[in-house]
């Protein structure tokens, strides 16, 4: 069993890539086969992730030298506790979103052109995310980022409507900038140390002068902070995410920012473990991210935008845990990342269902959902309360862990952050309750619901036969559009696949609460492993870290 484990490590990257290639080859000829391939590929990834989760827990980090090139020449893939956890959670989420988008594709009758691109691109995105989580090589991390970013460009601008092109432009340019900054950091690190292998770097960076270390660390963190949407670098996120199709926004919100957070964790623990001024800086950034993000959320009237701002705000919690630079802080951050991926994705999927029911995601138009669709109420309520941190849900446990770590740290700044975290949690609850009151508890007549079964003709949809500016109940560009950019058809019966996927993810969120004990233990051990570094270095470097 133990001997087989290393063979599992590359699978989360290889399987989706192969499946994507296969799907491009099949094209639109057999939609059912196409969908089956995607689902099977992601199920394999999920199973691999689960096996790695338990295997790594039992036998320590697993290492693969790609192509058989020996350390430190070749590219290394490493699965330690953190990587295995991230791969498992992310593949569970992507599987849910995939099923949801299949349901949406069937419901919107968009099987043909857009979906033939959507599914393979989605799989490539999964491959990129897995690659970023599993790689033990800084340049390969860059490649992983590029794989997932390039496929995310395609997903974000699917259908090429005006709103998506606009939002996509911001997103692409900002992502490109972060990639360039990352590449500069890699070039400088290579010039300073002569290696890009992360385990090797962990040894060599420590030999550099402190000022140089600080410079390299700052540039790397800058690149990752853009991707993770940490405050001064977070403005792009609420601008670009809400216009994408619901399943795409869901997976972006859940996963892509967390890849950035993961990279920050790796930088702070593996590459630059010494306490420095950067930790203080991270704590301030965390405070600003939490507070300013949630103030943004309070002003929003669109469900997706409000959720995007809450997403930014809650990135602050993870950065808070990382900035504490203690085992407890790191363990809180790891648990919070896993919890937040699930909850945020679920909420965006529910927002997609709201759009399907009401033809809009704006609080001006949505009302009376508690009466119209109680199922939607339940599906929204559980993850929303989880997000706000109501006991006994996992959001509460995650926040409690972080606050305990902050109190344990004991410095005035840590206490300030504890206060900020509590206030942010309260304001999140306020935003959620406001959303709930408007969308669910208001009388149905107060909003401007669209008649069921209507097609919200988007005037920018060039493929439609209707002239532009036809009688549009909702301003053009605001009508929710499906994966291919066509307007969503409203209905009071949700497609079973969409509903099923959402229910499954809600249950996954609840499972985080039910199995919180083992999960917190696991994240604590992951944090111990991260801060100690020895098991990682021993696994990657032949002859051990003493070399």
């Amino acid at each position, binding site marked *: 069993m133990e001997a087989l484990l290393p063979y599992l490590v590359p699978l989360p990257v290889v399987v989706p890539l192969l499946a994507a290639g296969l799907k491009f080859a099949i094209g639109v000829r057999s939609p059912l086969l196409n969908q089956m391939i995607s689902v099977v590929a992601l199920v394999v990834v999920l199973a691999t992730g689960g096996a790695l989760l338990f295997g790594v827990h039992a036998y320590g980090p697993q290492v693969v030298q790609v192509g058989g090139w020996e350390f430190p020449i070749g590219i290394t893939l490493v699965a330690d506790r953190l990587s295995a956890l991230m791969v498992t959670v992310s593949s569970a989420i992507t599987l849910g979103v995939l099923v949801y988008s299949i349901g949406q594709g069937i419901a919107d009758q968009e099987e043909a052109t857009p979906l033939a691109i959507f599914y393979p691109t989605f799989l490539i995105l999964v491959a990129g995310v897995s690659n970023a989580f599993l790689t033990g090589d800084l*340049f390969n991390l860059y490649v992983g980022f590029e794989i997932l970013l390039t496929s995310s460009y395609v997903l974000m601008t699917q259908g090429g409507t005006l709103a998506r*092109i606009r939002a996509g432009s911001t997103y692409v340019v900002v992502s490109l900038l972060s990639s360039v900054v990352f590449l500069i950091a890699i*070039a*400088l690190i290579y010039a300073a140390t002569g290696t890009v292998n992360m385990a090797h770097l962990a040894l060599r960076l420590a030999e550099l002068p402190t000022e140089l270390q600080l410079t390299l660390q700052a540039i790397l963190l800058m690149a990752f902070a853009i991707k993770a949407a940490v405050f001064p670098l977070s403005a792009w996120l609420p601008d670009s995410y809400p216009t994408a199709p619901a399943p795409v926004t869901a997976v972006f919100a859940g996963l892509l920012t967390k890849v950035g957070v993961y990279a920050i964790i790796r930088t702070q623990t593996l590459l630059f473990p010494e306490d420095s001024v950067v930790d203080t800086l991270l704590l301030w950034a965390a405070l600003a991210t939490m507070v300013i993000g949630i103030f943004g959320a309070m002003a929003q009237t669109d469900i997706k935008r409000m959720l995007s701002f809450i997403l930014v705000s809650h990135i602050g919690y993870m950065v808070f845990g990382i900035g504490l630079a203690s085992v407890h802080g790191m363990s809180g951050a790891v648990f919070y990342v896993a919890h937040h991926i699930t909850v945020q994705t679920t909420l965006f999927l529910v927002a997609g269902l709201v759009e399907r029911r009401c033809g809009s995601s704006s609080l001006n138009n949505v009302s009376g959902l508690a009466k119209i669709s109680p199922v939607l109420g339940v599906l929204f309520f559980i993850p929303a309360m989880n997000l706000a941190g109501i006991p006994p849900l996992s959001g509460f446990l995650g926040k409690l862990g972080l606050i305990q770590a902050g109190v344990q740290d004991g410095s005035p700044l840590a206490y300030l952050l504890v206060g900020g975290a509590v206030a942010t949690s309260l304001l999140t609850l306020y935003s959620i309750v406001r959303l709930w009151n408007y969308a669910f508890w208001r009388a149905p007549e107060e909003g401007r619901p669209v008649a069921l079964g209507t097609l919200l003709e988007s*005037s*920018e949809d060039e493929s439609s036969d209707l002239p532009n500016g036809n009688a549009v109940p909702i*301003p053009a*560009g605001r009508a929710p559009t499906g994966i291919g950019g066509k307007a969503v058809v409203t209905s009071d019966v949700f497609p079973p696949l969409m509903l099923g996927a959402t229910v499954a993810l809600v249950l996954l969120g609840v499972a985080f609460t039910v199995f919180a004990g083992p999960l917190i233990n696991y994240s604590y051990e992951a944090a111990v492993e991260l801060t100690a570094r020895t098991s990682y270095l021993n696994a990657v470097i032949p002859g051990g870290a003493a070399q």
Partner: protein
Amino acid sequence: MNDTPTLLLVIVIGVLVTAGVTLLLERSLTRILLGVVLLGNGVNLLILSAGGAAGGPPLLSLTPEGEMADPLPQAMILTAIVITLGVTAFLLAMAYRSWQLQGNDEVQDDAEDRRIATGGERRRLRQYIRAQKRALRQAIRAQRMELEAQIEAQDELEEAERAILREQIAQARRDLDERLEAADDKDRERIIFQADHAQAAALDEAKRRVREARKELAEHRRADREYERRLRRELRQRIRAQKRQLRASIRAERERLARAEDSDMQGVDY
């Protein structure tokens, strides 16, 4: 082996990155694209210079080991070039699509951002309405107070009249008593009879006046109530009209904003 890269390379990197960043700050996608290309090339050269000075091709039989160039940066640059190529193609497609849809490739502001920003205008409107309502309520309160003062003054007047009446009755009774005491028994009966007559007349007169005063008072009160009710109705109507006006202005505002979000008019400044 000499590890220092040439100065020329460093200067070229500086120029490329400067030009790239400048272009990246533009709104036109084509310029941004050019910026990305320049920036990408600058960073590629940076990676190249990270590998140290130039050397021979890194092939075992061709170059002695000490004179080889570092092959890893070149491999990395190759990867970066491929990625930049793909992204450049994508950006070009996006710029073209943007031009197809709206006739230019400028990146516009987010409509929702603009809407929330102009929400400030709506807030000002609400504040103005609230101030108006407050003024209206104050005026009503003042009017009502004036009314109550009037009623009170009337009441006092009536009270005074009644007191005079009571005084007169008492006076009459006192006169009667005096006369009764002064007269003998024979006269007494006559006086009583006469006095009774006079007194009864006076009493009737007094009662009548009291009754009249009461009626007048009731009339007054009714008129007051009527007035007050009318005043309140007027107030309600005024408030309602103002609210209607407020709603209409908000609706107009919303429509204006909706128009602002319209794709055809996006980018037009108001």
